[in-house]
């Protein structure tokens, strides 16, 4: 009995001792704290933690059963807290083609930290259903310099889904090593993208024993991915290795993977070839839409607009459904589908109507690559092409209110892979000039007491019109008028809008016209014999200052504005001085603000043209200078002096 007690006491003491020792070993040392301070100085002030060392190791195997090349992807990262305290979430995604086999966090002393690993379905607002899942761990770093090691292991069933490795992470990395061991039976091209400006070192080690080569990439002190909005897609800005799996040779037999674009097309085509395309159910609708129409364009429009208006965008990305279109009749019956489903329905309806219509794979502007890169990461969208009289017209039914023959900015200038039987055609979606999206605004004001009273006419073209029509069509019937008023008065009670007249809000082919009367309170201040007038309540681009910005600013589409405000000067008043004009022209934009006076009318004209829908970092200095001047004008008052 006594012995037992002694034993228990000894065990208790030992556990307590080990716990104390262990505790001591995981607390940050002076060196750790110093390291955290140095890293904090080196990286962005908002970085809560840093990765002191990240080792990413990729190997490949062959699965005889599935006849597929599989991937083992292991990541080991040493994390350090740069702040007083940090609470972060470490997470990894997986799906039906992959498994996370290991995800653990270890203390500095290599002992496992038993944080709870949460595994749940990944929900994304844009996707109704997908097979992606996420495993995550909430990790707390109680002190500055506190360290953990994260170990992650993943298995991917098919090499074609393993397309790229980025060097950067959510956190800055002091040292990063990526090792890709490629067995000699596997042909892979490692394409280096966006390496310029980064000191990425490379070496290749030949492993005789395992009959393979290891490609080793290392980089030091690489910043975290930027937390900015309206940026170019990540494939444009971050250094990464694109993994192009070409072929593998087993038992003397060579199997092609995605060696060239044709292989990629063949795989896509093999999926679309599985479609039954039994169009029985859609025939009546096609007849209804085309029967009394003589003009081919009108027939196409009727079909294209019907799909836009009647098929809701709902995306299912579950396994192969992420790549294979749904049957046209399914989409037709369900009245919903994703881009592939809508493209296929458009195609089948056009075929039924006797047109030559094709499926088109395309990468939107978020993706930097074109089809010279045979990889699943080249595209993310599907549309339809009408081939008629030697001319190809693209139809994207996901773009609601998009008129026939017009293209959304997100696909303009992008290479399209068009089906053509066993072969394919590559064509580029035409770019539209900025004037295509022109927005014309006219205000005419007179002064009545301390109010500006007048009217406004607005005319929207291109995507500006499309966006407006889409938004108003999705507004509740009983709220449409109120919403339109709020839109026109910017939700500012000083602006009273009345007598609104619009062109047909269902007509996507014509430009949109809106006219209304307007009274603006508190725009005019009278002091003694002087009247001060604020002429601008729209103040476009006022907040577009890129002082702190690191990345190009990307607009959703090209922007063009022609805004003219005319103010009639009251009798017995003359104008004191007009603000100075601005005129700037460059590759990406033309910007001008002009004031003039003719008889008793002051004309204030803004012409803004963002020609390529982007302001590049190299533009920032000039742009910010323009923005300062513009805001100065927005802040200036027109002064009328009593004569």
């Amino acid at each position, binding site marked *: 009995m006594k012995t037992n007690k002694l034993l228990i006491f000894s065990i208790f003491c030992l556990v307590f001792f080990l716990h*104390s020792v262990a*505790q001591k070993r995981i*607390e940050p040392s002076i060196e750790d704290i110093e390291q955290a301070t140095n890293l904090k100085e080196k990286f962005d002030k908002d970085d809560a933690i840093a990765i002191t060392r990240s080792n990413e190791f990729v190997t490949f195997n062959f699965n005889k059963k599935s006849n597929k090349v599989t991937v083992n992807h292991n990541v080991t990262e040493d994390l350090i807290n740069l*702040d*007083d*305290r*940090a*609470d972060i979430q470490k997470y990894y995604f997986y799906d039906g083609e992959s498994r996370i086999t290991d995800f653990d966090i270890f203390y500095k002393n290599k002992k496992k930290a038993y944080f709870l690993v949460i595994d*749940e*379905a990944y*929900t994304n607002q844009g996707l*109704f*259903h997908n097979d992606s899942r996420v495993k995550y761990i909430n990790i*707390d770093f*109680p*002190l*500055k310099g506190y360290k953990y090691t994260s170990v992650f292991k993943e298995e991917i069933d098919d090499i074609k889904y393993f397309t790229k490795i980025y060097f950067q992470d959510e956190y800055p990395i002091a040292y990063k090593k990526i090792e890709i061991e490629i067995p000699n039976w596997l042909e892979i091209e490692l394409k280096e993208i966006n390496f310029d400006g980064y000191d990425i070192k490379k070496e290749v080690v030949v492993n005789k024993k395992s009959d393979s080569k290891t490609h080793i990439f290392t980089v030091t002190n690489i910043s975290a991915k930027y937390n900015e909005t309206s940026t170019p897609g990540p494939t444009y800005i971050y250094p990464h290795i694109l993994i192009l799996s070409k072929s593998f040779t087993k038992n003397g037999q060579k199997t092609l993977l995605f060696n060239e674009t044709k292989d990629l097309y063949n795989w896509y085509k093999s999926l679309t070839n599985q479609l039954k395309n039994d169009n029985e159910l859609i025939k009546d609708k096609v007849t209804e839409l085309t029967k009394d129409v003589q003009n081919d364009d009108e027939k196409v429009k009727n079909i294209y607009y019907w799909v836009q208006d*009647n098929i*809701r965008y*709902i995306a*299912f990305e*579950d396994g192969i459904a992420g790549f294979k279109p749904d049957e046209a009749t399914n989409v037709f*019956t*369900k*009245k*919903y589908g994703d881009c592939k489903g809508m493209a296929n329905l458009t195609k089948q309806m056009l075929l039924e109507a006797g047109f030559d219509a094709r499926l088109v794979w395309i990468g939107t502007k978020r993706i930097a690559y074109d089809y010279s890169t045979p990889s699943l990461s080249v595209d993310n969208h599907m549309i339809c092409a009408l081939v008629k009289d030697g001319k190809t017209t693209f139809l994207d039914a996901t773009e609601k209110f998009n008129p026939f023959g017009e293209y959304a900015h997100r696909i303009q200038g992008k290479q399209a892979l068009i089906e053509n039987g066993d072969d394919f055609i590559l064509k580029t979606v035409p770019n539209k000039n900025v004037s295509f999206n022109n927005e014309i605004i006219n205000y005419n004001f007179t002064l009545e007491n301390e109010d500006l009273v007048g009217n406004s006419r607005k005319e929207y073209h291109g995507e500006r019109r499309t966006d407006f029509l889409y938004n108003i*069509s*999705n*507004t*509740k*019937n*009983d*709220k449409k008028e*109120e919403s339109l008023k709020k839109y026109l008065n910017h939700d500012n*009670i*000083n602006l009273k809008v009345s007598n609104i007249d619009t062109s047909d809000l269902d007509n996507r082919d014509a430009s949109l016209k809106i006219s209304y009367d307007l009274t603006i*309170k*508190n725009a005019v*201040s009278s*002091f*003694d014999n002087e009247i*001060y007038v*604020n002429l601008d309540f729209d103040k476009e681009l006022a*907040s577009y200052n890129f002082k702190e910005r690191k990345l190009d600013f990307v607009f959703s589409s090209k922007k063009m504005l022609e805004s003219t405000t005319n103010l009639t000067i009251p009798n017995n008043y003359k104008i*004191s*001085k007009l603000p100075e004009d601005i005129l700037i022209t460059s590759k990406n934009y033309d910007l001008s603000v002009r004031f003039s006076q003719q008889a008793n009318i002051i004309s204030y004209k803004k012409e803004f043209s963002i020609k390529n829908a982007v302001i590049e970092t190299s533009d920032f200095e000039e742009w910010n200078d323009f923005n300062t001047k513009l*805001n*100065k004008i927005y*802040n*200036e*008052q027109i*002064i009328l002096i009593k004569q």
Partner: protein
Amino acid sequence: MKFKLLIVLLLTIISFSNAQSKQELEAKDFFWGANDAYKNANEIPDKWKGESAVIIYKNINYDYHKFAKKVKYKSSIRKRILLLDKNAVKEFSEFSFTKRFRSTRGKFSWRTRGKVFFAIKIIKPDGTEIEVNVDKEAVKSKSDYKVAISNLEVGDIIDYYYYLYEPFTSKYEYTFAAVEQTLSEEYPIMDFKLYLESENDFFINFKSLNGAPELKEIPTDKRNFRKYELNVSDIEKKDFPMWFYPLLETPSVKFQVYFARSGKFEDRTVAFLSKQEKDIKTSVSKEEVLELYKKRFRTYGNVGDIKSFLKGKTFSSNEAKVKTAYYYMRHYYLTRFMEAFYVDDANILAFPFTVYGYPVFIRNQKQFIKHFTEFLKRNKIPYEIVVGTYRYNGTIQDLLIENNVEVLVKVKTKNPLYAQFFSPHTNINQFASLLHGTDVYLLSSDNRGNITGINNGTLPNSDYKKNVSLKQVDLDISEDFTTFTVISNNKIKGYNKISEQYDRLLFTDYVYEDYAKYQTKSFTESIRKKKVRLKTTKELNALISKLKKDQIKEFETDVANEFDVSDIENYEYKLVATGRYGLDTNLEYNESFTFKNQFIKKAGPNYIIEIGKFIGGQIEMVDEQRERNVNIYMRYPRTFNYEINLKIPNGYKVAGLDKLNKNVTNTTGAFISTAKVENGFLKIQTSKQYKHNYEPKENWNLILAFLDEANQFKNEKILLKKI
């Protein structure tokens, strides 16, 4: 053998799945069966043709059945809706639902599981009915199922039901969640029917409010089975304005159901039950309130700690003694544990509360009442227990649901003191603003702490002159007229400070204040083991440091939002006083910051200053809000004062002072502003006052008058004119 087992297993599965489909069919028959009176209801009145959607029929059912301890609870809802625009189609194009779930009611059971039957059909304009195959089309999401509705178009009718079947076992009494809702909802409703079914042992409290029809009993064949219905037609969509309590004016229903198997459990149920199950309870009398609470509010608690604290202290009055005791209790029973809460939340130390041994910890309002009255009883200080209900529930005479009761203590000192269950900053004489000015019941006790009587009473209302926020703002303009330097001193008292205290005070601001006041050991000092103490102290300090940095970032954003400016720079914040010992004491803090190129407009050689913007955002009433046909309910009367001192730049004079002198004062409130130039400063004082917490709708224009004037002040400018 194995084969036999397989057959048995298969048979079990088949019979199980048959049973399932039987229930499912029952649900279907219930809503869409031969007796469905709405099967062909497809037309809507002309007046609603411009709506987004119209609910042709809405039906809600609650069924309460039992067999001994086993309760079978069913609730279901059906809606038949005509979709009139794309917005409505989008709204009803996706549904999510749970198929099976484990009930959280009654006794936990691994075996008993609840089920949900969800079905949808679409009725096309030509009358064709298409039932969605939910089982086939639903996909599993995180923890539930989602279904995208096929073939849904504008002009269709969507007809769906959720049928929840939830059996559970309750050995003891069980109270179902109260239902308190307006009849109106987002879309207009042509016909609404509510059905309740119950058996003996289920007690129902039900009340129709504000013109909603009464619940009617439908005769049944069985003596112990009851059925009730409520029918309403032609319900306009809800459109609730600001400052409105819908349950007070909009047709609504309130009800709650209680399960109590015997008199013993009826007694134990904390609810106002009818004498017999067959009677629907529609009101609660004063006597019933006394009956329910006389046992439940008997004084109880270990107040030895307070006694020790007060020992040796002398007080000029009982009032002073009660105040001292209240603040001590707030510390001893709450704020001294705050560090442990943070330590626990941040995973700094496992089981941090063990550091305190077995302390008294007050968890709820009722426990507080018992404990505090125990202290009063022992000190022979007379008191009453106040039983009230929040204004948005109606008056105390309208009381029906026990959960809507709020309790506090009225200490019958020379100037009565009110004490409510404290949170970290609650002052004596501070109680929920939603009780201000309301009629209440007062429970009186004998000197042994037994509740003996009940009287009517009224709680005092609050005064706009006592709930005051004062912001003194010193403004300086840079020589190049680009930058404002703003230094502000903020003093907030009365009910205005309550939410501000939660925003402004970090736990360290008040916990250490209390430690110093009461000479209490801090959490970390209470840790016995040195190593643990050192580690915890270090990690807690790191947490505090982080929280302080985060707090400053938040304040910077707050001040930018308050003045509607961007790019605040040089932000500094200093807390001057916490305002935690007296409702009339100020929460006080200072802020300073600069911002550029905002509120200054160049006008030739002169500058226009948008001086009105410095009184912060004002309520803007748009056209739709200016018409009002319901009364106005606010939290409490209040005053917002500003004192703005603008240093006039050398070489300039101020023009436009006349517009800064405003005065709209009426019975509902006021906006008053004065401006003068004195010693090189433009000095502006503004005061915006909301005088009452309630105004009849007839006074809406009076409220608009001072709100508009304040908003107009926000738009006013002055001219700095070059001399």
